[in-house]
């Protein structure tokens, strides 16, 4: 489908049949639109506003959480630690699911204390699915910044989630064999992001810091950013074990991608907007989609020509 045409659609905010008419491949879409014409003329501005809010809200949440973590450096203890493991408001311990799994495999010792720390996370993502990736993970934000550096649009090679499960499996085996939580301790972007922050800030405050800590952690993050530059979201889609584990939550979570029937123009705007490579348009006949790669960023809903009428993030149903 013609791109400019789609743009026009988007800008005008209304799906007049005339706009689409010139396009040959869109016969079917036009047909559908004809059927449900009146509904489409619905006041799109309202929906549009709310979906824009979603995108902003997402950044607000991610940066807000990082800000709360930054407060620990000025000795305000709301969130202490990092996203791998932390303590909220003095007593609520929080532990990332994959970090916990690795720690458990490495030590072979189940304790209620540690399990108690994953429970809040399990509970949260049983409701929200893989929303961690889209709403909390600092890399999502950094990757977006990289995306804005004006790099040429590149195609991310398709990578099956199976690779991710292989990564999960091999790190768990390595942890078990070596008796060290290998990924979380050495390579995790969550650990390294906050280790880098802590290291740099301590250094800035004049405390002795081992320089390797800053270099190694900064280097790991930089490597991921370079990967992002050349293969957008290759890491998130395929390799990241943390995301893979949260992806499993998508299968049972309350939050899901929901579709409303009958008004889709099959323009694939949603697919173009999704940087996680979820195939939305072709699943539109279902009532909802539970893709392990969906991070509930809501860009599909925002991008949808109907401004979120067809695709939306929804609890229940």
């Amino acid at each position, binding site marked *: 489908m013609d791109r400019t045409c789609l743009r026009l659609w988007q800008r005008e905010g209304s799906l007049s049949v005339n706009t689409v008419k010139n396009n040959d491949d869109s016969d079917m879409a036009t047909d559908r639109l004809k059927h449900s014409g009146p509904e489409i003329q619905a006041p799109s501005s309202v929906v549009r506003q709310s979906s824009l809010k979603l995108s902003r809200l997402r950044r607000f949440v991610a940066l807000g959480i990082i800000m709360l973590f930054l407060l620990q*450096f000025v000795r305000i203890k709301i969130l202490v630690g990092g996203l791998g493991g932390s303590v909220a408001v003095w007593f609520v311990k929080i*532990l990332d699911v994959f970090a916990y799994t690795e720690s458990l495999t490495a030590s072979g010792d189940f304790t209620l204390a540690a399990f108690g720390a994953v429970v809040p996370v399990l509970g949260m993502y049983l409701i929200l699915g893989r929303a961690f990736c889209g709403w909390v993970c600092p890399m999502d934000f950094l990757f977006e910044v990289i995306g804005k550096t004006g790099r040429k649009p590149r195609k991310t090679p398709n990578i099956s989630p199976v690779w991710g499960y292989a990564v999960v499996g091999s790190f768990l085996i390595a942890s078990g064999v070596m008796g060290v939580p290998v990924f979380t301790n050495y390579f995790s972007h969550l650990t390294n992001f906050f280790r880098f922050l802590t290291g740099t800030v301590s250094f800035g405050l004049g405390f002795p810091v081992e320089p390797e800590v800053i270099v190694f952690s900064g280097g790991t993050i930089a490597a991921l950013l370079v990967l992002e530059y050349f293969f957008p979201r290759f890491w998130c889609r395929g390799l990241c074990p943390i995301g893979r584990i949260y992806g499993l939550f998508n299968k049972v979570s309350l939050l899901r991608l929901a579709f409303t029937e009958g008004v889709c123009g099959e323009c694939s705007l949603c697919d173009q907007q999704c940087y996680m490579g979820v195939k939305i348009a072709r699943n539109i006949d279902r009532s909802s989609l539970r893709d392990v790669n969906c991070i509930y960023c809501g860009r599909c809903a925002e991008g949808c020509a109907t401004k979120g009428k067809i695709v939306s993030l929804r609890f229940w149903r």
Partner: protein
Amino acid sequence: MSDKPRQRVREAGGKHQALGLFADTAMQITRRAFLGLSVTGSALALFGSAVSCSDQPPDSGEGVAGPLSIFPVGGSIRPPGALPEKQFRAKCISCGVCVNVCHVMKYDAVAVAGLKDIRNFGTPQIRDMRDFPCALCMECPGQCPTGALKKTEKEKVSMGMALIDFSLCFGWNGDVCLSCSKACPMGGSIFDFYNGEWGNQPYINDNCVGCGLCVKYCPLGGSAIKVVTKKQYERVKGQYVADSRKLMAMQGEQRYAIVYGQNLPQIMAKGRLVEREYR
């Protein structure tokens, strides 16, 4: 890491033969050295110890044994309440909660280990205790999300063991100081004092929890105390105890030679390293 302390012991063993007082200690050490050293080397050492059993008076200056140059090096001192090292390593995910809790508490005692020991990378360890001892506020153990640090009573903490270097301590070299005992949060249950003509000699017993406060408050430049891990302590304990006894039992002449010939010059030299004392 495992090699260095043993080497130190070996050297110290060699020196002790000159004293000829505690020949059994010397023999024991030499025997231990025998296992590790080449046959020739240890045979020579044995020969040396046999010779030195005759009552040669110690020379002043170079030849005199400074008791205990055995301080082990290496090994990480963990925050209080850490599980035994292997379990600790398996559980800790380098989340940084303990590091930052300590920062919030304004002690800044915990830092993340670098790549010196790749296995320990990212795990928390106590910084140089001369500047950043653990104040035993006991905040971090309760907050570790993985349980690598476990809530513990203050008295039962076992981070390490403080060893006083008798050749550097003012109290063991003709003075009264006792700053360390005043700084120690455990006080009387840990410090034994041996008053004598050579000073008010403090001795830290096995109840030490290894927090390092004494290390910080020792007025000697660079501190006369070092906290070593409990494991390292087990290795040198025998000799450490024997050396303290030996010093206390030592007759005036000999002790005089050691204090004036060797220790005081060292102390004076160290005393100039005041870069950190009163920050």
